[in-house]
């Protein structure tokens, strides 16, 4: 019977709930349109439109190249500094963009939260998806730069999909956690922008991994973006070997963040409408 398929019971839920994947699949169209909405809305009524996704990282790279490559003469392991920093930036920008967008995704949609039921996880997820557009554009620019610098990737490029997976994993777990917390603590919104800045300098974006003394490496690699940024660069540019140890440690952090994030999210999810 058709109706029985939709039978539900509404009651107070226990704190520990496993994410209902089936429900998220049922709402995949919503996820799609929300992602489209944020992409379109982000570049609506601007002359350059999606061109900003190209210009922003390019300008940041230019500044980094002048300051860190030119003035501070940071060692870029034989790679032109522009390529070196841009490769780091493409991965980093996705992470920081997704994180700030997703952590704000619930607060900027309070109308939806208090008026309609849908799996709340769809909101941070749509931020993660909409940011992949900028990421893909970044990759295209990266490829063009490599052509410009006549730089050939090596066989390490084969690891690239795996690195992207780890990048998504790191972004997803933290996004979900921060999104849930931001509903209750507005501090998340204010703290995030400078924490992201600190985290960027705590990851090998403007300098190589090798600049960090060996004895601090294990501690350093707890930041999941250390392994991801360095691995991203290694797989695309192929100059150094893949940082497997850092990737391993970072993945553990990411997984823990994901499990904890989903736990907190499902615990707080049912109170969102009452708290916002």
């Amino acid at each position: 019977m058709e109706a029985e398929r939709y039978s539900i019971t509404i009651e107070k839920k226990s704190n520990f709930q496993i994410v209902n994947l089936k429900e998220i699949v049922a709402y995949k169209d919503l996820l799609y349109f929300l992602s489209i909405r944020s992409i379109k809305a982000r570049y609506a009524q601007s002359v350059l439109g999606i061109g900003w996704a190209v210009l922003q990282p390019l300008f940041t790279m230019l500044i980094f190249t002048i300051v860190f490559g030119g003035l501070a003469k940071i060692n870029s392991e034989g790679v032109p500094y522009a390529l070196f920093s841009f490769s780091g930036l493409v991965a980093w920008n996705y992470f920081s963009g997704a994180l700030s967008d997703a952590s704000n995704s619930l607060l900027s949609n309070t109308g939806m939260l208090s008026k309609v039921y849908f799996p709340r996880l769809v909101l941070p997820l749509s931020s993660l998806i909409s940011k992949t557009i900028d990421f893909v554009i970044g990759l295209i620019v990266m490829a063009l730069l490599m052509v410009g610098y006549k730089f050939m990737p090596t066989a390490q490029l084969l690891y690239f999909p795996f690195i992207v997976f780890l990048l998504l994993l790191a972004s997803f777990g933290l996004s979900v956690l921060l999104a849930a917390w931001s509903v209750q603590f507005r501090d998340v919104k204010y703290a995030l922008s400078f924490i992201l800045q600190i985290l960027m300098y705590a990851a090998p974006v403007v300098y190589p991994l090798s600049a960090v003394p060996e004895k601090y490496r294990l501690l350093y690699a707890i930041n999941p973006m250390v392994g991801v940024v360095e691995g991203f660069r290694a797989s695309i540019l192929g100059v150094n070997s893949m940082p497997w140890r850092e990737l391993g440690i970072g993945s553990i952090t990411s997984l823990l963040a994901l499990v904890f994030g989903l736990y907190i999210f499902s615990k707080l999810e049912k109170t969102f409408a009452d708290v916002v």
Partner: protein
Amino acid sequence: MTQPIIQVEQLSKAYRIGLEEKKSETLAGVIIQTLKSPFQNFKNISNLRDFRKEEESIFWALKDVSFEVNQGEVLGIIGHNGAGKSTLLKILSRITEPTSGRVRIHGRVSSLLEVGTGFHPDLSGRENIYLNGTILGMTKREIDSKLEEIIEFSGVSKYIDTPVKRYSSGMTVRLAFAVAAHLEPEILIIDEVLAVGDAEFQKKCLGKMKSVSKQGRTVIFVSHNLGAVRSLCTKGILLKAGTVIFNGNIQDTIQGYVSKKDRSLLHKGTIVEEMRTIHHGFAKVKQVILVDEYGNSREDFFYQEDISVSIKLEIIHEIADALLDIRIISEESVVIEHILNSILGGKPITLQPGSKEFLVKVKNRLAPGSYSINVGVHASAGNTLEYVEDVYSFTVLKASQEDELSYAHEFVDGYVHQKGEWQQLN
């Protein structure tokens, strides 16, 4: 189908008022709270048996609400503001979860607590249809198949590819409602959405909702528009302070909701039969309204602003020496003033059959507060021929037309105010 499609069992929802504030919203606050928490815990433990404190901080928006809805029924939920209607709808729509009790729903639910949820001004009408539709639980394929119909219904087909921010607010609402009207769930939950748009559009919406309920769908409807509730619903639930005080057919539910006072507001001074407590066939009070000095009918009067009572009578048989009176009644049903045509030198009058109209100027010395009016027609021997009660509710404000006359105190005592002639004797 004997099983009810919706079963609500002892549903309760509590909101914390006092304690919630103690819970900090900033991290710094949480840190301070954490540092203080050993003291707080100690305090809580020593207060364990003091239940009063706990109860004060908890507000029960719903308490032990139980009811059932069968398939095809259209249930109207009515009650005053704060009776728990919105909370109930939010629980039924799964937006918030109950504190205790449960609801079983057997069917696909769409809830419409607002039209146009998720609309983005930068997106076109078409894009917003998809966005809003999926938010309401439709799939892309369902929307694809109804897109033409939705656009047609909205009446904005010419601008469907224009960003919604260029629409007038009326167009936006029409588009939003068009999406909502094409939902096809087994159970539809609607909150006050008819309160938007112009009269023409509201009529269209009402028609659409009627056809939805005719298709055998189950509808739960909340509205202050009693006319709409009456014409749409088959059953009703009356909520008061979070509990169900009546559950039955819609006519009786509305009757229960409309207390005497509300009834007078509803009918704006026109007398309905329930107000007529005495009638002997000599006269009929047709209308009683209060007007200001310019003849405008009003329900709020300034402090000390003079009031006129306009009374329309239908005299059926001649009444010689008729006494007419007006009683001003307090909220506690105390007669505050008795205004009689035959006292203080006034004379009874003779009323010939036909329509009669009176305007009675009353000096307003009433204390700020809410009052109501009774009107009577009596024979000079004292027997009452016609009496209507609570025909018109009105409020006397603390403010006056001239500032220095405004009532300046926090508390209001008594029903009639006068300044008195004050003389100091020593």
